[in-house]
């Protein structure tokens, strides 16, 4: 069964500092991986997605992520954090099985940005 682990429940960074949010996945085969962001009282918005190919994926608002098969990881990075990045970040894995497509989410990481 597929699963996702986000080992850090909370991360605090200063505005302007770099950021890495960790994600480890468990999946038999080649996964499709996603990072979503959730702002307070809103739905999820897609930051970026990985389909088999280039391991470094560029997303919106300066975010990128790197897929590593050997480490079973898909960590999210940003070079310079802005206060508006304060939100909850979810890593998710999906299957290429066209009969389904459910997303399996990690527990989320709450990002707090200090001024």
């Amino acid at each position, binding site marked *: 069964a597929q699963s996702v682990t986000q080992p850090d429940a909370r991360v605090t960074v200063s505005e302007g500092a770099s950021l890495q949010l960790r994600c480890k996945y468990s999946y038999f085969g080649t996964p499709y991986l996603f990072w979503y962001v959730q702002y307070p*009282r809103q*739905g999820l*918005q897609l930051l970026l997605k990985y389909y088999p190919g280039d391991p470094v994926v560029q997303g919106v608002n300066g975010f990128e992520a790197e897929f590593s098969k050997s480490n079973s990881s898909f960590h999210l990075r940003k070079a310079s954090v802005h206060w508006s990045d304060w939100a909850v970040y979810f890593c998710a894995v999906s299957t290429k099985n066209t*009969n389904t497509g459910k997303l399996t*989410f990690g527990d989320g990481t709450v990002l707090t940005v200090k001024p």
Partner: protein
Amino acid sequence: GPKVLQIPSHQIIDMGQMVTLNCDPVSNHLYFYWYKQILGQQMEFLVNFYNGKVMEKSKLFKDQFSVERPDGSYFTLKIQPTALEDSAVYFCASSLLGGGAEQFFGPGTRLTVL
């Protein structure tokens, strides 16, 4: 970008009553999903729906739950009867394709069962 709408945004009902949550998916999308979020963090898959049928459901999708999309109208989640543990935020999502395609999420319906 494409938007998924959910009605109502908040619903309060007494335990044992029936509730229907409505989702207006992206107009040309073919796959529809419900997810349940508890305590503002954990997001869990409930069910997905394609071509008028449930394709996959999780253990959270109890016998009291049902989904339908009659005649291309709202995609609905019905709970009958409701229980206290059904209190959560329910998110609808839709995608054009299955199998790993990008899903677009609605803003959620906060369900409170008293």
